[in-house]
Structures are given as structure tokens and as C-alpha cells.
């Protein structure tokens, strides 16, 4: 089986030719998987690699013919290589590189007696997105679980532990620092991160002052919970404002409808008030022939245009009838 470090690309700030080649090879491999219909598309494969569940990732690695367990090691190897090359590169690049590494990381590196390679490793993580850092933490957790399960492996991997600590620091800074990020997506991210923290806590249990990672994880849990409550309040406030805006818009719409009605009423009211000058409204409607729409003379029994009978012939009143029809004259 080919080692994953030989082909798997990693996120480095200055990819060189070898890495590019590795990326190409890896992409080709993924392409083969697409052709074999093991994944629907390249984008889907990348999504599994970056965001997929560990099971799906493991399956993908198996399909690629790679050893999933060695993923972290491979990443470390690649980053080491990249950082070595960066260290050997021009002074200008070196200066730029140094600038990228913040003071906190440098101090930590000095405390732990780290080399520049490891410092580069940390910088590599820092340049990754929060999602990527979280994905990496997840993989580190899994790696640690495996180590705990497999007796032939050393229980602790100093590089992995350092990466974990750095990842926690970076995420803590990003989560607690105010940002322009949409509160909803940040809240979602926090929920995901909280789940991840639970898993990580299991991997680094029990909590002890001797274990910096487990301590950090506990601190982190508190920070996350605090941030969650803050965001919840912010979201509630936003929702209230949105509701208010919605109500305002509804009121405005209603007002414009009433305005229109008033406009129409204003247009027809003068005519309405002048109705006494003509026929009454109901009389006007009854003076329309329902068959041809012609205006009919109410005194006529039928429509002059189409001949439709408009009303039954009017019977003369008692007083109007000739005496002979009333009952033969006075009936006394």
C-alpha cells in the first residue's frame, strides 16, 4: 500500500513543485473513483475529505487504497518538508514567513524547544479555515483513540498533541474574538464545535492539571458555552428587530392600500354625492338590459334593442280600473 504522505496534498502557504505533483496525482486518483462511480463527483470527494464523517472518510481512503490511520502522520511529514524548503528559500520569503508566525506561537515554540519546522507546522494550521482546523482536530482525536486501542503504538504523539493544543488555541481565539461573521453561522459553528469538544474530552480524559490539553479543553468548553449564550441573546435581539421591521412594512403596506382606497373614494365620491341629479343607483342598474347591455327606458316593458321583457306588465290599481271591472259599479 502506498503511504498517504506520498500522494496526499496538504494546505501549505507555499506549495512547491513536488506538492503540486502530489496534488495532481491525488486528483487523478479521485478522478478514478469518480469513473468507478464510487463517488458522484470530484467535488463530492473533496467534500467527504474536508467535511465528511470519519466513516465516509475511512471508506474513501480505503477506496483510494490508502491507510487512513496514517493521515495525520502524513500531513505532518508534508508540512515538515514544506517548512524545510521554506526555511531554505530566499531571505525575503524567510522574513515573510517569520512575520506570519505570531508572538504567542513563537513563545510556545521556544518554551517547548520547537524547531522551525514545527513552528511552520503551527503556522500552517493557523492559515486554515475554522472548519479545516476542526476537521483536523477530529482526525487527531481519532488518531489518539486508535493509539489508545492499539498497544503496539506509543500512547502519546508529541507532534499530534502540539497540533491539538495549537488548534485549540486558534479556535479559542477565533471563537471568543468579536468578528463580522454572521451570528447564525457562528452559532452553528459553535454547536458543531461543542460536539467536537465532547469527543475530544473523551479522548483526553481524565481531566488533570498534568494534561494541558484536557485542561484547555475544559476551559474551552466554558468559553464556548459563554459565547453560545451571548450569541443566543444576539440572535434573539436580531429576531425581535426583524419582527419589528416586518410589522413596520406590513403597516406601510396597509397604509398604502388605505391610501389607494381613499384615492378611489375621492375620485368617485363627488359623483356619488351628485347622484340626485340623475337616476338612483339601483334604478340605474335595473335600467340595463341583462341580455344586450342596452340602457332601457324603465317605463317600457321590454328592451328596445333585443326585445327582452324587462318586467311583468303593471296591473292598474283599483282606483285606476274602470268601474265596470271593479265589480259592476257601486255594491251597496
Amino acid at each position, binding site marked *: 500500500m502506498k503511504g498517504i504522505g506520498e500522494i496526499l496534498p496538504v494546505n501549505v502557504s507555499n506549495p512547491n513543485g513536488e506538492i503540486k505533483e502530489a496534488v495532481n496525482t491525488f486528483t487523478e486518483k479521485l478522478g478514478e473513483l469518480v469513473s468507478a462511480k464510487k463517488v458522484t463527483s470530484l467535488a463530492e470527494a473533496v467534500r467527504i475529505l474536508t467535511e465528511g464523517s470519519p466513516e465516509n472518510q475511512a471508506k474513501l481512503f480505503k477506496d483510494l487504497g490508502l491507510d487512513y490511520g496514517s493521515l495525520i502522520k502524513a500531513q505532518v511529514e508534508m508540512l515538515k518538508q514544506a517548512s524545510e524548503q521554506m526555511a531554505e528559500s530566499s531571505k525575503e520569503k524567510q522574513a515573510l514567513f517569520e512575520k506570519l508566525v505570531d508572538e504567542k506561537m513563537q513563545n510556545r515554540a521556544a518554551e517547548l524547544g520547537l524547531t522551525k519546522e514545527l513552528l511552520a507546522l503551527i503556522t500552517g494550521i493557523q492559515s486554515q479555515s475554522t472548519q479545516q482546523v476542526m476537521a483536523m482536530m477530529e482526525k487527531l482525536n481519532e488518531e489518539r483513540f486508535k493509539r489508545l486501542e492499539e498497544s503496539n503504538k506509543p500512547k502519546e504523539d508529541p507532534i499530534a498533541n502540539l497540533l491539538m493544543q495549537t488548534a485549540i488555541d486558534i479556535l479559542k481565539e477565533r471563537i471568543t474574538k468579536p468578528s463580522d461573521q454572521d451570528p447564525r453561522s457562528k452559532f452553528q459553528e459553535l454547536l458543531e464545535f461543542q460536539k467536537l469538544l465532547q469527543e475530544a474530552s473523551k479522548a483526553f480524559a481524565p481531566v488533570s492539571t498534568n494534561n494541558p490539553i484536557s485542561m484547555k479543553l475544559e476551559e474551552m468548553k466554558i468559553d464556548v458555552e459563554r459565547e453560545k449564550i451571548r450569541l443566543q441573546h444576539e440572535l434573539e435581539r436580531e429576531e425581535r428587530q426583524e419582527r419589528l421591521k416586518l410589522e413596520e412594512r406590513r403597516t406601510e403596506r396597509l397604509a398604502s392600500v388605505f391610501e389607494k382606497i381613499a384615492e378611489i373614494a375621492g375620485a*368617485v365620491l363627488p*359623483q356619488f354625492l351628485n347622484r340626485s341629479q340623475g337616476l338612483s343607483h339601483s334604478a340605474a342598474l335595473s335600467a340595463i338590459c341583462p341580455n344586450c347591455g342596452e340602457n332601457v327606458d324603465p317605463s317600457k316593458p321590454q328592451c328596445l334593442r333585443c326585445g327582452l321583457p324587462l318586467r311583468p306588465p303593471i296591473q292598474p290599481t283599483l282606483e285606476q280600473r274602470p268601474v265596470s271591472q271593479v265589480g259592476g259599479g257601486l255594491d251597496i
Partner: protein
Amino acid sequence: MIDSVFVKKAKEYAILGLEYFERENSGRILESAKQNLDIAKEITDKYLPELSKLDLFTKGILKSAVGQAWIHPFRDQMIDTLVTELAGREGELGQVAREYPEWLRDHMRRVFNLALLYIAREM
């Protein structure tokens, strides 16, 4: 007053209706006008039931306008304006408005009357 919202809207709908009839029954208006045929009933039977498909709000406005207001005086003014406007147009409707304005005016008046009846009694 003739430019009021009500008249403007009524004119808009009348033109839309006429254009639709022109499209759907190409040549029918011109032919009927030439032969002085009465197609008012045919038009109303075909299109007035469409008014019942309007939304409740518009129906309410129409019914309220027809039921409470004296709108007959608008009719003749509106029809005169419409015929003048149509006369400036190309096509069948324009030709009918130019060559047979009385026929068109008579049809419009009766269709308008039937529409009032329909709105007042059927909607």
C-alpha cells in the same frame, strides 16, 4: 376627474381585455364592425366570468365601487377617451376605432353596462 385612479384602472383593464380578444379572435372585431354585427353578448359571456377569478380584495373594491358609487357618468367619458386613444394605434383595434367609432363606442358602452351588472349581482 377622468384621470382618477378608478378610471385609469378601468381603462387599463378594458384595453387589456380588448387586446386579448384581438389576439384570440384575430379579424373578428373588424369583420363584425364592417357587418355591424352585435358581439357584445359574446364578449361578455366569454370574459366576464373571468372577473370571479380576481382576488378577494380587488373583488371587494370593485363590488364596493359598483354598489355604492354612482359611476355611470364615468362610462361615457372613459369610452370617449378610449376610442380616441385606440384610434391612434396600429392594427385591428386602431382601424376599428378610426373607421367604425360608433360601433366600438356602442359595444364598449354595453359591455361596460353588463360588467356593472355582473359585478353587482354575480360576484
